[in-house]
């Protein structure tokens, strides 16, 4: 509720109310009109600039969303479903293991077929894992060359058992690493 200043009894208020009403004059009507035109022009320019920035930001957001959607759709994985792998991961045994049997050869073949069905490189390439995979593949390739050359030369199969066993271990390791890569890619 407003108070009548004249009813204020304090001397300070009295002094303040007796101060001059006008300290200094503002500018005249013409100057006011000029400044108003300038302010209006600035406000219009700012509004136009703001609208253009807003449109650019909206376009950028749309582009980002479109890219994200396109990337997502482009990641259709030709590999076997992960669920199958989670319940039936390739399990390998070496010839030296007590439980080793002829079925181990079949499992090695199954692991190799599964590895062959994977894409050459996963969607997300991790440098450390890729180095391991490359190393394993190189070792397997070297053993394959050795075994092929030995069979051609007529070396007895029993003499190649160690190499075969080592190759099976390497395939097992490679399958495990690629399986882990596949799981990580699916989680991402």
């Amino acid at each position, binding site marked *: 509720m407003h108070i009548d200043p004249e009813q204020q009894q304090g001397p*300070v208020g009295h002094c*303040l109310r007796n101060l001059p009403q006008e300290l200094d004059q503002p500018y005249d009507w013409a100057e006011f009109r000029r400044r108003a035109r300038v302010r209006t022009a600035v406000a219009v320019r700012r509004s136009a600039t703001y609208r253009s920035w807003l449109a650019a930001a909206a376009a950028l957001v749309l582009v980002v969303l479109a890219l994200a959607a396109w990337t997502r759709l482009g990641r259709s994985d030709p590999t076997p479903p992960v669920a199958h792998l989670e319940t039936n991961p390739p399990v390998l045994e070496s010839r030296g293991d007590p439980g080793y049997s002829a079925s181990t050869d079949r499992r090695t073949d199954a692991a190799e077929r599964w590895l062959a069905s994977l894409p050459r490189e996963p969607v997300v390439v991790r440098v450390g894992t890729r180095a391991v995979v490359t190393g394993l593949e190189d070792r397997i390739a070297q053993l394959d060359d050795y075994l092929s050359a030995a069979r051609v030369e007529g070396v007895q199969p029993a003499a190649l058992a160690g190499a075969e066993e080592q190759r099976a271990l390497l395939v097992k390791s490679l399958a495990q690493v690629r399986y882990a890569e596949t799981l990580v890619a699916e989680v991402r």
Partner: protein
Amino acid sequence: MARLGDITIPPELLQKAVQGDEAAQAVVYTSTAGATFALIRRIISNRAVAEDLFQETMMTLFERLPEFRGEAPLGAWLRRIAVSKCLMYLRSPWHRVRLQLENESEPEIHQGLSALITPAPPVESLDVERALLSLPVTARAVIWLHEVEGYSHEEIGRLFGRTVSFSKSQLARAHQKLREWFESGQDRQLCTSIQSNSKVL
């Protein structure tokens, strides 16, 4: 010169101004500009800022003139706009930073410069002017609004976005500082202060 809150404009003139009659608008401007600017200058000591706020106030007046219903004097309505603009400025973060920087400088220089910039008022009120300028800007605004413009503590608290206690404490602080000012006898130095500050420029 009438206070801003008491200024009235004939309804027919206001109607012409609303319809865009430039001559009528010029009369409205001329009738209210002096008192409006004086009120803003009492709250905002910096003239450049005061001119900006004055321009905004008068532009808002003409933009919203069609909404004026005439239930109170036009000056009272305009005063509300001016006070609102001033307090919005005082509450802005930019002003708070600027105020902090200004407070770090010597207050005497600001007082002297303020006296030089404005036309010198009569000698007997110069000490009151300087005393008022020596107050912190918030306390100055509160004491002016309460003691001169007649705002209640509730209204002042609402304008500042604070409580009634805030208004009362600011007013008490302002009164105390003004009393200290007058009791310290600084009014005897006002002539030498102006002369010495003229050398600053």
